[in-house]
């Protein structure tokens, strides 16, 4: 499982940190519908929009490629950290086998 874990983390890192640069920047389905039908302007800025990682870019780094890559990798790290907690929570206790 160790090798498999490393493989999934690596693949996820490459997707979030590299491939994401080539992702479509068009509005997603919901946002496009909101624009077309005219309720997009009701959107309020998120309370976390000042976060250092808001919008999958790192605040203060202007290079979109580097900023997005670092934000993506940070996201993988954060998800991995919380995911480790989830793993420990769902795993069967050793003695209970």
């Amino acid at each position, binding site marked *: 499982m160790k090798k498999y874990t490393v493989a999934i983390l690596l693949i996820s890192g490459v997707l979030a940190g590299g491939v994401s640069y080539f992702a479509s920047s068009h*509005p*997603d*389905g*919901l946002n496009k519908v909101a624009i077309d039908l005219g309720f997009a302007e009701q*959107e309020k800025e998120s309370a976390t929009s000042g976060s250092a990682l808001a919008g*999958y870019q790192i605040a203060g780094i202007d290079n979109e490629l580097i900023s997005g890559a670092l934000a993506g990798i940070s*996201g993988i790290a954060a998800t991995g950290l919380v995911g480790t907690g989830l*793993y420990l929570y769902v795993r069967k206790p050793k003695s209970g086998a």
Partner: protein
Amino acid sequence: MHIPDGFINVPVSAAAVAVSGVAIGVALKKSRGSMEQEVAPMAGLTAVFIFAVQMLNFPVAAGTSGHLLGGALAAILVGPWVALLSMTVVLALQAFIFADGGLSAIGLNILNMGVITVVAGWLVFSLVSKLLGKNKRGIVVASAIAAFISVPLSALGFVMEYAVGGSGIIDISKVLGAMISVHLLIGIGEAVITALTVGAVLSTRADLVAGAKGLREKSNLHIKNVELK
């Protein structure tokens, strides 16, 4: 499909927090200590992988993109209860750290992209994989169909929330038509990504796919044989 702050009013958003909260509570109870030691890392890895793939918006129509929701994929990989927790991890981090999806809309987003996709994905997958038989092809096809259906159902969740808690300035039938049609297209992408991922895990470690339980013994034998060599 992350709903920002401001689209849906406070009472409906609060009701969604309550519904999602109950679902998460049940999932927490059901999944505690429920995964074998060997497969349990998949709970966290599923969250990591879905977070990554959700960043990959693909074009679906002129000026429109879509991305994986992942609830069906998660349900097939780790089972529905753990899947809801994995999805909650992803959606919560997106809202709190990346400002993707409003904080006041967190309940709505967990309901639409977590609860609905996981429940619909798992039910459709279970039904179709039973019909097609527990073989590799049957499981991959069932995964694709489950993933495809989960996306317009998730969109339907938004339409119902908008009907009750939206501003009311737009004809709801227009919202329904627009949301369902674009999300049928996005559903195709969801189906492709889900089928490819489930197929890849099935080919390498079939014992890690909760939805492939019938295949498990065979694949374990296979892995042991390979190790002996």
